[in-house]
């Protein structure tokens, strides 16, 4: 047995030397809490994120497009489940996480509170939203909590198809009729700024960043990740003839980076605190479907109990 001080020293030494923290290891309460909050928020985002895209499964323009969209949405469900499992290793149950989502105590990414209005939105979501998520998730592959890190490695492998299928939709539309081009540009205009907000508030205002960076839960700051995404994405937009909806954006030759206009953080705060266009819709849909599935879970458990009982009588007879 170790003294509390020895335990803390051991934990700090692990963090310092890039040794992953594993579920049964001792960790500071605050580390556990932060990790649970981040993991559950990430998991909820994957699951709620299925809704805007699910809206288009029945209206996909071809069988090919429909199969791709279904596979992508199924992946997102899987991502949610990997992350819930990782969170469960810290001692929170799946029920608690779902209750916290339903009560509003746990958050999910504000991006999914925007509607997917046209087919071009499906392109913009895959390309921009998944693209932003990828930049964040690649960085999180090096997070200090073992199960989170492993989930990120798995998720990153699956994500690159998500972004490519989105960019393919945008490319197809930009090669299409004037109306299709207009639709693609309109989707770009609506999703660009919310995608940049996905990285969270600027570093000097981010509440959790400092401690999370010390514990190596986060490996790079919001602003660093956001800039990386901008620099990748602007060129991709120009390549297919899309305009970035930021008249004052300019390329800085000396830093080789795009400098964007200030982000409207008031909008971000509004959406996060429940006043986005679809907050109510997303949450009430999740609650409804969760309730509808209750009898299925109960029936499955009853069936399994019966089977065990039957087996027991078989052996005793």
């Amino acid at each position, binding site marked *: 047995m170790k003294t509390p001080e020895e335990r803390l020293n051991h934990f700090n030494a692990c963090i310092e030397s890039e040794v992953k923290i594993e579920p049964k290891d001792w960790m500071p309460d605050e580390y556990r809490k932060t990790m649970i909050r981040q993991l559950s928020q990430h998991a909820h985002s994957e699951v709620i994120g299925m809704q805007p895209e699910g809206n288009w499964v029945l209206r996909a323009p071809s069988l090919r497009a429909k199969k791709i969209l279904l596979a992508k949405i199924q992946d997102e469900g899987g991502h949610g489940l*990997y992350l819930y*499992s990782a969170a469960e290793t810290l001692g929170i149950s799946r029920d608690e996480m779902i209750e916290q989502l339903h009560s509003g105590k746990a958050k999910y990414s504000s991006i999914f509170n925007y509607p997917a209005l046209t087919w071009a939105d499906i392109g913009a979501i895959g390309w921009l939203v998944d693209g932003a998520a990828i930049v964040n998730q690649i960085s999180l592959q090096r997070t200090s909590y073992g199960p989170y890190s492993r989930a990120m490695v*798995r998720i990153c492998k699956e994500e690159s198809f998500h972004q490519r299928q989105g960019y393919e939709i945008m490319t197809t539309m930009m090669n299409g009729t004037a109306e299709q081009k207009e639709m693609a540009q309109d989707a770009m205009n609506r999703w660009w700024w919310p995608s940049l907000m996905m990285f969270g508030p600027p570093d000097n205002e981010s509440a959790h960043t400092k401690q999370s960076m010390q514990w190596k839960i986060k490996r790079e700051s919001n602003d660093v990740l956001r800039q990386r995404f901008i620099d990748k994405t602007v060129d991709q937009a120009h390549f297919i003839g899309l305009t970035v909806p930021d008249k004052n954006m300019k390329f800085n030759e000396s830093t080789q980076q795009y400098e964007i206009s200030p982000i409207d953080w008031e909008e971000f705060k509004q959406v996060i605190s429940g006043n986005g266009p679809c907050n109510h819709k997303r949450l009430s849909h999740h609650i409804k479907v969760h309730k509808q599935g209750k009898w299925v879970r109960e029936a499955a458990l009853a069936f399994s109990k019966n089977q065990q009982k039957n087996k027991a009588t078989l052996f005793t007879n």
Partner: protein
Amino acid sequence: MSTTDNQLPLWEVFIQSKSGTPHKHAGSIHASDKNMALENARDIYTRRGEGRNIWVVLSDQIAASKTEDEAEFFDPADDKVYRHPSFYKVPDGVKNM
């Protein structure tokens, strides 16, 4: 925490990716019985041909050593260098050993 609803028991998933290789831990899933556990594991962890065989085991059936006791727990092996071939001197000129 609600007592009237639950997400079914927790299972750990081990996947063998190729014949001849060991099963490796992939993560966990929820299921009411073995069959559902295997099917859920397949749908969640092998959507791209990552596996040819799956084991599932109820999570509460697994015992684990504590990493913080790593040093004490594994120290019986620490002073037994003679378990390694490099401990032994083989005369110069002896081959194929």
